[in-house]
Each structure stands twice: as C-alpha cells, then as structure tokens.
C-alpha cells in the first residue's frame, strides 16, 4: 500500500508536527492525527497480526469498530495499555505504540505457520480439537494456545493513575455528535432544556468531519452549542452502557491524549440520569466477504473517506472499490474529485443508479457491474485484485494498491438494545433497526435508520468461481472467523446465532462483532435456508467499547476499596505491637507478640495470663442495639429463643436468635437496663443483619408493638477485663457501684462511673473467668483503657487479642456463630437447648423446631474432640469419617469447626459437628489427612472448669 498525505486536505494542523514511534521506529504526524492516520500517511500498511492465524492485518476502519489494528501504548512508569484501536489513539508528542500478537516482529512472525495449518483450527477448535487426552491440557494445549493466540499482553505493574467519578442530571442526553446528534442538541438547546451532548471522538462532528461541505455548518453549530449555558459538551467520552430509568454510564478520557499526563485523574466515570435520551450513534459500514478481504490495504470505503477528508491521507495511489451499495460509489466519486485515482468501481449489481454510473464515467473511472472481487494479490500489502462476473466468467486481473469495501450499513443499536428497546428487521438496510422503545429514548440519524444514502444489496459473501472450502474469506477479522467456519458450524448442527457465535467465536473479543455480526447472520441464513429474522440476534451487552478497569473502579481501590473500621482503642494496640486481623469490616488485634514470640507463643502466654491473673481485651466491635419502649420485653421475648419478660432490670441474659427456619443466626449477652430499656449485643459480623431482621419483624409483623431500635455499636467502647484479678484492677477506678460478688453477681449489669466516665458495667465472661465488660462512651474508650492498663500494672495485666479469646471460649465450649454453626445448626444441634424457652408459646423459629427434618435422627451435632495424640492440633475444616479403611470417596460424617492448642490444659482441643454426635460420646472418630489418618475421641465440648466455679470468684 502506498498511502500518502495530500496537500490542503483534512483537519490536521500542518503547522504542528508530532513525533512518535511504532514498534521502535520513529515517525512524524500532525496534531489532530490519530495513530492510524499518521501511520497511514507514512505509508505503513501492516498494523498487526490476526488472532488465530497470525495473518498480516492492516486497518479495516477509521473508528471504534476497528477489529485489526490493535496496539499497546506504553507511557512508562506502569502506564501501559494493551488492545487500543489505532484509529482511536490520538497522536501526541512522544507516543510509543507497539503492534501485538507477533513474534519476533510484525514483518516476520513465526505464528503465521498457523495460517498454513488452518485445517487444524476449524470452527469450534477449542471445543473439540483439544478434548483428548485430558492430561495434555495443562502441559501442552493451554500453554501453546496462550503463547500463540490471544491479543495484547496484560500489564505487569500496578496502575499509577487515579480515576474519578461523578453524577450528572439533564433533560436531554444526546449520545453521538454527528450531524443528527448536533441537530438534536440545537433543537433541545433552543427549547431551553438542559442538554448533555457526548461523543467518543476527540473532535465533535462525527461524519461531518469527513464532509467538507458541512464544515461551515459544523463550525457554527458547535460554537452555538459551546456558548449556550444550558449545554454541556463532552468529547472523548464513550457512553458504555444504558441502564434502567434512563441511566447512562460514560467514561471521559482526560489525559490519554496528552504528551504529559500530569497529576489529575486519567479518566472520569459519568453516571448520567436523563429525562430523555437521544441516540445518534450513526451506523457502521459492513465489509464484504471474499477471498483475500483481510490483506492490508483492503478496508471500508467509509474509512478511506474519513482518512482522506478528516486527516488528509489518501489510502492509496490506485484504489479499487468493491461495492454492493450506492454509498461506496459516493465515497469513490468524492475521493476521485479530491484527486485520488480510482482504479475501478466493481459492483455486484447489474444495474446501478444512472447518475452514479454517469458521474463515474465522466470522471474517467472504470466500472464493472454484475461483477465481484474474487481474489487479492499481495500478502502484507495489496498489489492487485482478480475480478470476475458474478457467474465466474470473464476473470481478469487489475492492478491496485488498495481495495475499498462498501457492503451496506449496520445502525449502531447497541445502547438502544442495552435499554431493552425492541428491534425490527429492515430488508432495506439488511439490518435490525430500533422499533419500540423501553425507556424515554429515541434514535435519530443513521442509528435510527433515518438516513438516506441510496440503496444496495444485502448478502453474506460475494460469489466466487472457486470452491468456498478452499479459501479463507473473513467474516470476523478480529477472531479470524471465515465464511467456511460459519458454514461448518451450521453443518455441525448449530442453528441459533447464539450457538454459532460461541462455536465459531464470531462477534467476540474487543469489537464485539461491530463489523461482523450482520455478515455472519446473512451467511447463516443462507446456509440454513431460513430468513435472517429466524436466526436470532446475539444480545448486546455493555460496554460499547472496551473500558479500563480503573474507570469502573474509580476511588474504590486499595485502602478505599472497603473502608476498614477501627475502634478508638485500635491506635493503642498498634502502638503496642498488635498483629491485626479483619473481622467483618473491623480491624481487630489478633495477638500482642513480645520480642521473639510467634503467634503460638504469644497466645499461650496470653491465655495463661487470663487464667492466672488478668487480661484486657478490646471488645468494642461487638454489635450493640438499644431496644427501648413499653413493649421492649415482649418484643425480645418473641425474637429470641429464651424468656425475657421475667428478666429483672440489672440482670443479663444470653440470647439465642434463630431464623424462622429454626437455624441459629446470632447470639449475644444482653442486659435489661430498665423495665423499658435493653442493651443488646450481637456478634461483631452480625450487627447489621440482626438489626435489619428485628426492624423487619417490628415494622411488618408486629407494628402494634411500641418499641424503638437504635444501633449503638459505635457509641460504646467495650473493654473486657477477664481473670481472677479483674475486680482488683477496676476496684479503685469505679465509683457508684458495689463490686462485691454478693451485690454484683455474674450476669449482672450496673451503672456508675469509671475514672469519672459514665459506664454500663457488665459482669459477664466469654472466658470462664471472673470478668467485666466496661461499656463507656466511645470517645472515652482509650482514656479508660489506659487508666485500666495503668491500674493493672501491679497485677501483671496482659493485653490479649481475638486468637486468645477464641482459645479461651473453646476451652469452655462456647460457640462462635458462623464458625461452629453454618446456617444449618439448630439450638439442639449446638447443645444449646437449655437456652430455648420451651414453655413460650411462640418465638421466631419455634415452629421449625418441630419440622420433620429437624426432629429426624442423625443430624450433625456439636461435640468436643480430644485427639489420641495430645500434641496434634486438628485442622479446622478437616473432614471426619467413622471407618478409615473404607474405599475412597469415603462417607464423611462431619467436620472440625474449632481447633486450638490449649496452654491451660497442655494439650489440643477441638469442636466438631458430627452426625449423631451426642450418641457417640467416647467413640473414636478418624480424620484422614494427606499421608496419615488422625484419631480422636468424641467428648462433651467442655474442657475446663465444667462446674463454672471460676466465674464466681
């Protein structure tokens, strides 16, 4: 191909040369060029290698539809983007672009051997060629496919850019700033509506940019719109999807076109809610299907027109045109009048409008009616074509250096279809057109089928005298799908277009079939001998064109992906060397290692400190709900399994919460502060779920109850002080509360002050030791913590974390909902039937206690396990079997739910859900692990101080 820049043509700025590189070679273009137009102007025809066959490929189009010319742009410093379409890459000084899918170079590519091995890569080759033997997948098929096929390389560095997002509202949103979109904008602007007009290109104007006759109109119109206060113009902005209720997502590219990207956001995601949406996305020209239609230099006629009139680049010095549509003639005539030599216009139609033929003749252009291109000479660039009559007669060769295809037009109905607007087949267009809208939306211009540019044929492939099975005529350029692949898919039984698409991969990858879908439909229609409308249409899905993950993620990455919740005491834990873990969204101290300690050593030390002295623990993350109102006790009585009405103010109760299906969903200790006021606690992860559930019952089942629920999780800091010396530590700090065991027994709550701060002081224990949970207003949390810490120094106070909390509670057999239960565990299964008020007439989940599957025998029940070898700590999640010698797959009867080393006991302990577990006390169960089988005895899940005497210290 020998494209060249024409003097005095196009909109590029000849006074502003721009230097760039492609595959390491230096070139020069002008400001206003795309990478594609600049390379074309430098005579480059080879832009890439195809996906499967590694065939040399040039430009097919001049816009978003481009399937071939995919490049990677590396800006350095991790700013690397693969699979950009060269026509959509704006030129800037220093642009560094690389071709893809070739090795070692674009001109010499070893992968092109695939082209000659084409018979091994038929349609559905993924599905069938590599099915057997299975073991070859990992070692041979997958690695070789990955190396040979595929598009650009994924980035290897973290993206250094930032991305922003915004919401916008308008009366009228117009997508596409071609003539139809601009007209719609002018009209809405005049009606004083708030208008947003967006376009994916760097310049507004669409098709008008390639039509010198519209230049003056375009300039005036854009100036009027730019000056109107009620109009927002967004360039470089792609409407990627159309969602419910006229909600449009669009990405604006802010820095990709700049030589220096700067420090601002690279892209901005617009979330636009519009009163009315006007789609003016235009139409995309269809290629023609014939042998050699993918040789670099064969391109869409409309693309050649754009390169000429927008960028001043003639795609060749001797250009042949293959048309089945009047628009190809119009493009050819316009180009000829601009000084481009047209070698011939070939048209499959026997008769073409006389005005077009006469004008061609007047310009001295050779015309071949009733004829078709049947072959292209040249491999990396067009050297000539072979033409014959439609019946194969009169074959002749013609010299040319470019071939333009005019196969008709496909309206861009992508966004219309996202909005679930209906489509209707149009024989005139040979395409689907917008029909009945589903939103307040209309299509204008070509995308609505409202554009008159003559008539044409709608065909699948051009006729050829050669056997279609002997050559490749491409339908989907990006996926290397040929006409014979479609035929093969139909022969092998694919009848719906969805099947054909998946079998052949037609219409997949970055272009999503923008140039191939209709041709594939026509070919399938011919092969199946059914009308196109009967074949179906693949579903259009967002995004319209590929978008960066960055734009969609916006700020929601790294630390901002999900905010970490921290307690007021968290900074103290950090200062004291805590190792943290995430529990739900909370960051919690897991353990506090001293120098040289690993987790095991730290946890052993912390456990013994609590058992023998006193430990301090940040329990602020516990969910808390204040339940207030005259019916509060009645409400809790209906929600929880146990009775609440008789609970005296100042007393606490362990509450067990079921779902209506009878399974445990949450638990926690709660206190009655006053006759009409309860201080509820929930699990750390369950707070929001429990509040939602309680609100649901209160609002919709029992609206007659006078109760108010308030989340107080973040209002209180909670300091758990546990161990035989706990009372001694807080005694000097507490005022207004008699701490003596007689006045303040286990499971009681008192209000007073600690260090002068008002407190709800709970005497509760999740460790089995004497313990207090000090609730103070959150803002005082660290102050009180440090005071307790200071007072505890004389008693050897030790901070402990969640890991130690877990071990201590397991020694006592206390469950953790979500660890020892999994949403299928009833109170009876968990050994918590003591917490169920059997005399209560009703509570949430009660009726389900009598469900047939819940009263059935053999349910998994929570038991303790003691390994025969006390030094072995079972793995949590390990499966349990009764007979270790049975054949694989073994019958599994349960699994280990909790398992720890107990420093207190000097041995391992575990809890497990085991089928019929309560009846297996003393039995041996087996835990098969890689290379060995472990044995353990089933015991009651109570490993320490079964009498509970330590609680009463």
């Amino acid at each position, binding site marked *: 191909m020998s494209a060249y820049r024409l003097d005095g043509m196009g909109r590029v700025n000849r006074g502003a040369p721009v230097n760039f590189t492609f595959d390491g070679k230096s070139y020069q273009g002008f400001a206003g060029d795309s990478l594609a137009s600049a390379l074309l102007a430098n005579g480059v025809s080879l832009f890439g290698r195809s996906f499967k066959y590694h065939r040399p490929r040039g430009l097919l189009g001049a816009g978003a539809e481009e399937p071939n010319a995919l490049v990677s742009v590396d800006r350095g410093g991790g700013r690397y983007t693969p699979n950009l379409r060269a026509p959509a890459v704006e030129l800037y000084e220093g642009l560094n672009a690389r071709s893809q899918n070739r090795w070692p170079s674009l001109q010499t590519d070893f992968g092109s051997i695939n082209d000659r091995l084409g018979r091994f890569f038929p349609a559905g080759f993924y599905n069938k060629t590599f099915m057997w033997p299975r073991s070859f997948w990992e070692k041979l098929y997958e690695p070789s496919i990955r190396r040979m096929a595929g598009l650009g390389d994924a980035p290897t560095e973290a993206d250094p850019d930032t991305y922003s997002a915004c919401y916008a509202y308008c009366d009228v949103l117009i997508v596409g700033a071609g003539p139809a979109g601009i007209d719609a904008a002018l009209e809405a602007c005049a009606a004083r509506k708030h208008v947003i007009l967006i376009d994916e290109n760097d310049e507004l104007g669409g098709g008008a940019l390639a039509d010198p006759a519209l230049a003056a109109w375009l300039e005036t119109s854009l100036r009027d719109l730019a000056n109107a206060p009620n109009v927002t113009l967004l360039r470089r902005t792609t409407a990627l999807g159309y969602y419910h209720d006229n909600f449009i997502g669009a990405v604006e590219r802010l820095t990709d076109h700049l030589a220096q990207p700067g420090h601002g956001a690279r892209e901005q995601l617009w979330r636009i*809610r519009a009163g009315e949406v006007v789609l003016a996305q235009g139409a995309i020209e269809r290629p023609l299907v014939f042998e050699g239609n993918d040789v670099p230099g064969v391109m869409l006629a409309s693309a050649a027109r754009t390169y000429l009139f927008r960028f001043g680049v003639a795609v060749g010095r001797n250009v042949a045109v293959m048309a089945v549509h009047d628009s190809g003639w119009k493009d050819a005539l316009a180009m000829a009048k601009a000084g481009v030599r047209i070698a011939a216009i070939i048209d499959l139609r026997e008769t073409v409008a006389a005005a077009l033929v006469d004008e061609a003749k007047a310009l001295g252009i050779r015309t071949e009616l009733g004829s078709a291109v049947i072959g292209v000479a040249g491999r990396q660039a067009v050297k000539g074509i072979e033409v014959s009559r439609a019946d194969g007669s009169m074959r002749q060769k013609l010299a040319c250096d470019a071939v333009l295809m005019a196969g008709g037009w496909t309206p861009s109905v992508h966004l219309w279809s996202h909005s679930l607007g209906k489509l209707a087949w149009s024989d005139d267009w040979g395409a689907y057109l917008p029909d009945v809208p589903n939103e307040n939306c209309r299509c204008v211009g070509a995308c609505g089928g409202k554009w008159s540019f003559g008539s044409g044929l709608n065909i699948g492939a051009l006729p050829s005298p050669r056997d279609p099975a002997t050559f490749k005529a491409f339908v989907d350029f990006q996926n290397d799908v040929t006409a014979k692949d479609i035929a093969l898919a139909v022969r092998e039984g694919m009848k719906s277009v969805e099947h054909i698409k998946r079998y052949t991969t037609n219409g997949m990858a970055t272009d999503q079939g923008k140039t191939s879908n209709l041709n594939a439909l026509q070919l399938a229609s011919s092969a199946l001998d059914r009308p196109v409308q009967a074949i179906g249409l693949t579903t259009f899905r967002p995004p319209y064109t590929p978008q960066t993950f960055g734009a969609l993620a916006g700020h929601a990455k790294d630390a901002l992906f999900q905010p970490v919740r921290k307690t007021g005491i968290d900074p103290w834990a950090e200062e004291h060397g805590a190792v943290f873990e995430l529990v739900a969204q909370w960051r919690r101290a897991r353990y506090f290692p001293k120098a040289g300690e690993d987790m095991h050593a730290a946890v052993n030390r912390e456990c013994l400190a609590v058992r023998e002295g006193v430990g301090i623990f940040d329990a602020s993350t516990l969910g808390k709900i204040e339940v207030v109102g005259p019916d509060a006790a009645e409400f809790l009585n209906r929600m929880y399994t146990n009775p609440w009405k008789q609970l005296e103010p100042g007393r606490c109760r362990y509450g067990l919460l079921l779902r209506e299906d009878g399974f445990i969903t949450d638990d926690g200790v709660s206190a009655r502060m006053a006759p009409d006021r309860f201080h509820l606690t929930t699990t750390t992860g369950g707070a929001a779920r429990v509040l939602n559930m309680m609100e*649901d019952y209160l609002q919709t*089942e029992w609206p007659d109850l006078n109760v108010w629920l308030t989340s107080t999780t973040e209002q209180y800091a909670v300091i758990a002080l546990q161990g035989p010396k706990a009372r001694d530590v807080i005694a000097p700090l507490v005022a207004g509360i008699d701490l003596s065991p007689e006045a303040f027994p286990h499971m009681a709550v008192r209000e007073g002050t600690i260090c002068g701060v008002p407190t709800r002081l709970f005497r509760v224990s999740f460790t089995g030791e004497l313990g207090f949970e000090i609730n103070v207003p959150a803002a005082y949390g660290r102050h009180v913590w440090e005071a307790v810490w200071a007072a505890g120094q004389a008693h050897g106070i030790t901070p402990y974390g969640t890991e130690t909390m877990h071990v201590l509670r397991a020694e006592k057999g206390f469950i953790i909902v979500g660890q020892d239960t999994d949403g299928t565990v009833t109170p009876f299964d968990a050994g918590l039937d003591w917490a169920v008020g059997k005399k209560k007439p009703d509570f949430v989940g009660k009726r*389900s206690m009598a469900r*047939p599957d819940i009263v059935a025998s053999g349910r998994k029940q929570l038991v303790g396990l003691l390994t025969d070898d006390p030094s072995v700590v079972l793995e949590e999640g390990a499966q349990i079997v009764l007979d270790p010698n049975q054949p694989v797959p073994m019958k599994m009867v349960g699994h280990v739910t909790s398992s720890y080393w107990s420093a207190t006991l000097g041995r391992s302990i575990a809890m497990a859900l085991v089928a019929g577990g309560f009846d297996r006390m003393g039995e041996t169960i087996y835990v098969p692990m890689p290379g060995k089988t472990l044995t353990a005895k089933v015991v009651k899940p109570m490993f320490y101080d079964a009498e509970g005497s330590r609680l009463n210290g």
Partner: protein
Amino acid sequence: MILIHCPYCDETLPELEFAYAGEAHIARPLDPSGLSDEDWERYLFIRANPRGRHNERWRHVHGCGRFFNAVRDTVTDKFELTYKAGEPRK
C-alpha cells in the same frame, strides 16, 4: 440503575438506597404451632416467583429505614407502583 419511589419519604431515589426483601404479603401465621408441616413449609419456603407482575418488599435501608411493598414486572424490571406496608395487595 432503577429509580424507586419510597412511599414514606415520597421521593423517587436510586436503587442503591434500597434493599430487596422478598415476596410481599406473606404474613407470619398468628399461631405457627397450630400449623401442619405442609402449611408451615408453604409459609417458609414456597414463593410465587412469577414471570411478570410481582408483589414484593423493599426496604429504604439507606434512607428512612422503612419496609414497603412494590409491584415490579420481573421481565422488564419496571416498577408499577409502591405502597406502604400494611396496605392491601395491589
């Protein structure tokens, strides 16, 4: 993103503020213990799952916090109307 009208706030707001809460008008039986296993199963698990018009519950969870009812078409995802909890089926 769907717009949903909260009948309590009397505002039409993006669905991000709302949470779906299952089929509507499935009242908890007044005396669950008096129900047969079959009737209790029907209450717990059996749902209409229609193609088309669906009476369902939503909660304005990031707004007023109220549960309310809606009629939504499960094919088109369009809300026909919303109404307060306790009002008869529409």
